[in-house]
C-alpha cells in the first residue's frame, strides 16, 4: 500500500528486534529507577529516548508505513533536548549549596 512490502523474514526479524528493544527499554528503566545519582537517571532517560527512536524505526519496517518514519525523525531530532534540559538541571543542582536530599525529593 505504502510502497513497502514485508517478507516473512523481515517480519520475524523486526519482531525479534522489537523484543530486544523492548527488553532494552525495561533494563534502562531499571537503571532509571535505581539511580543513584541524578546523572545516572538522565543517562537512562537518554538511552530510553534513543531506544524509542529505534523502536519507531523498527515499527516503520514492521508496518511498512513510511509515514511512521517522520515520527521517528522528529523524535530523533528533538528527544535530546530533554536530556540537555535535565543535564543542565543536574549541573545547577551541583552548584547550589542546598543539601542533595532537600533538592531532590518531593516533600
Amino acid at each position, binding site marked *: 500500500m505504502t510502497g513497502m512490502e514485508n517478507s516473512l523474514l523481515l517480519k520475524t526479524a523486526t519482531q525479534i528486534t522489537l523484543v530486544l528493544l523492548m527488553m532494552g527499554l525495561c533494563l534502562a*528503566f531499571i537503571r532509571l529507577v535505581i539511580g543513584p545519582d*541524578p546523572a545516572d537517571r538522565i543517562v537512562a532517560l537518554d538511552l530510553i529516548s534513543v531506544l524509542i527512536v529505534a523502536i519507531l524505526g523498527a*515499527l516503520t519496517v514492521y508496518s511498512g508505513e513510511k509515514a511512521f518514519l517522520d515520527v521517528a525523525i522528529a523524535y530523533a531530532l528533538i528527544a535530546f533536548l530533554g536530556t540537555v534540559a*535535565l543535564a543542565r538541571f543536574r549541573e545547577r543542582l551541583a552548584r547550589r549549596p542546598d543539601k542533595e536530599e532537600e*533538592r*531532590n525529593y*518531593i*516533600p
Partner: protein
Amino acid sequence: MNETDNHRSDWIARSTALLPLLIFTGAATLVMPVMSNGPMRPSLPWVPGLDIFLSFNIDGLSLLFILIISAVGFFVTLYSVNYLHGHHQTGRFFLFLHAFMLSMLGLVCADNMMALFVFWELTTIFSYLLIGFEHEAAASRHSARQALLVTGAGGLALLAGFLLLQIITGTADISGLAVHADALRSHPLYSAIFVLIILGAFTKSAQFPFHFWLPNAMAAPTPISAFLHSATMVKGGIYLLARFHPILGGTATWTATLMITGAITAVGGAILAMGQSDLKKILAYTTITALGIMTMFLGGRATPSLTAAMTFLLVHSLYKSGLFLMAGIVDHQTGTRQLENLGGLCTRMPFTACSAVAACLSMAGFPLFFGFIGKEIMYKGALAETMCPHLAVSAAVLANALMTAVGGILIVRVFWGRPRPELSAVKEASGFMWVGPVVLGGIGIVFGIIPEWVGKWLVEPAVRAFHQSPYKIKLELYHGINMPLLLSVLTFILGGCFYLAHRPLFRLLRGTVERLPITSGRAYDGCIAGVAWLGHLQARLLQNGSLHRYLFIVMATFVVVTGYTWFTRIDIPPALSLPMLPIREWLLIALITAAVITVLLTRVLLLAICALGVIGAGLAIVFLSYGAPDVALTQLLVETLTVVIVSIILLKLPALKRTAPPKHLKRLMDGILAGAAGILVTSLLLAVLAIEPDLSLTAFFEQNSYLAAHGKNIVNVILVDFRSLDTMGEIIVVAAAGLAGFALIHQKRGQ
C-alpha cells in the same frame, strides 16, 4: 444645611401630604357608587402566561381600608415633617413613607392573588426600611431585620398558599375563588392552604406566637409606628383574613384556630402591656391585643362577630394612631418615653393632652366615644357565636378591661399628677404635630355620637364585601339594657380594679417575658443562631479550606454515585480472560505499568519526572502500533517539551523541605477511593467495548478527506477542516494559556 433650606424642604415634604389627601377624597367619593353599583374591578395584564393580572377589586372592605390608610397617612405626613425637622434623611423618609402607603393601598385593592402578594411584600420591604430608619442604632437594624424575616417568612407561606389555591382552582382572582369555596373546604389540601395563608396573616398581624417583632419594631420613628404598626400594615393580616373568610372561613379549623390564637394574643398582649414603662411599648402591646381581638372575631361565623371585627378595626385605627402620635409628641418635646419620668404634662401641652384623653377614653370604651360602640358590638358578636362563645366573651372582657386600665394609666401617669421639675421647660408642639391626634380623637367622638352613619357607610359595606348574610348590620349607641351592656359594666369594674392595682401588677409583670422558660422572641434568636451554627457546621465539615477534603469529596461523589448507578444495573460482568498478545506488547504494557507505579511510589523528583516521560513515550508507541502516527508524534513532542518546561521550573525552585508523611488511615482511604475509581473506569470502558461500534462518521471523513477537502492525512483534515471549530477553540486555549502564563510569570518581576 441652614435653617431656611430646612424650612423650604419642610414645606416640600408637607406638600406631599396632598397625595394621601387626594386619595382620601377620591376614595370618599367612591363610597356611594360602590355601595350602589357593586365593586369596581379595573384590570391590566401583567404576566398573562402565569395568569397574573394587575386586577383590583374595590369594594366596601377595600374602601374602609383606603380611607383609614389615607386619612392616617395624611396626618402622619404633616406630623412627620416637624417630628423629623433637621434630620438629614427626610427625603428618604417621605419617599419610603409614601411608597409604603401606595403599596398598602395596592394590597387592599388587589384582586389577583399574585398582585396582592407583590403589594404585601412591598409593604414588608418599606416597613424594613422605615423601622431601620435610625439605621445607625444597632437596635434599629436588629429590629428591622427581625420584622423583615418574620413577616418575610410568613410571606413565603402566603405565597405557597396562594399558589396552591391557584393550582387547585385554576383561578388567580380572589373574587373568582368564592365559587370554589365549597370545593376548597373539602379539598385534601385545605388544611395546608389554610395553615399557609394563616401563617402569612398571623406574622403580618403579629399574632401569637409571632407577636414579638412588633414591640421591637418600635425602634422606628414614632410616626412610622403610628402609621405602619398600628393603623395600616399590621392590619394587612386582618384584611387578608377578612378577604379569605368567604373562601376558607367557616370551617371548625378556621374558627378554632382564629378564636384561640386571637384570644391568646389579645389577653397576652394586654397583660404584657401592663408590664411596660415605655410609652411606645405599652402602645405596641395594646396594638397586639387589638389585633388579637380582630382575629378572634374574624374567626367567627356570625354577622355580629364580623361586624365587631370591622368596627373595632376602625375604632382602633383612630385611637391608636392618635395615641402613637401623642407618644411621639411627648417624646419629641420631653426627650423621654418612660412613664416614670413623665407626669403633669396637661398644662404644658394642652392640645396633646386633649387628644390623648379622647383617644384613651375611646380605647377604654367610654360611652359617647367610638370605642364604646366597638365594645358593645364586640360583646354582641361574641355572644352570637355558636362555637365557644364563652372563650370569646371572657377574652374580650379581660382584654377590654386591661385596655381600660392602660388608658387610665396613660392619661394619669403622663398628663395628670404633679408636673415634674425637669419637664418645666417643655412646650406644646407645633400645630402640624398635634393636629393629627386632635382630629383623630375628634373623629372618635363624632363617630361615637353618630354610629348609625358610620355603620351604614363604612362598616356595613366592608362586612358585606366578605360576608353575605340577610342579617341586618347596624351600629347603635344604645341597645337597651342587655347582656353586652352588662358586660361593659363588668369591663369597667374590672378595668378600674386593674388600674388601681397597676403598680403592683407592673412590678409583678416587669420582666415577665425574660422569666419565661421559652418565648417566641428567643425562639427567633435561636433560629438565627441555628442558621449561623449550620453555617459554621458547613464551614467545618465541607468548605473548611482543606484542599484534600475538597478533592476527596468530589472524587468520592463521582465514584460512589457513578459506581452505584453502574454496579446496581450491570447485567453481565465482563469476562476476565487475558488475550494472547505478542511479547513485545506485554513488555510495553509492563514498562508503562512499572512507570506508573514508580511515579506513585517514588520520592525522587527527577525519577518521577523521567517515569512520566516513559509513560508518555510508551503510550506513543501504543498509539503508533495502532495506526496513529499523528498522535504518537504529538505525544512525543509534548512529552519532550514538558520535560524542558519542568526542568526550567525545577531550576528556579529552592530547596523543598521534607515533611512528615500523611496519616496512614487517610492515605488508605485515598487508596480505596483511587482503586474504586480505577475499577469503575475499566469496567465502563470494557462495557463500551462490548457494544458494536458505529463508524459512520469516520467513513464519511475517509470518503471526503481527499475528494472534498484536498487532504490525504485524514486526521489533519478533520482537525483543520471537518472539525476546524474544535481546533479554533483549541488554539484559543493555547493562546490564552500563553498570555495567562506570561502574566503570571511577569507579575512577580513587575511588582
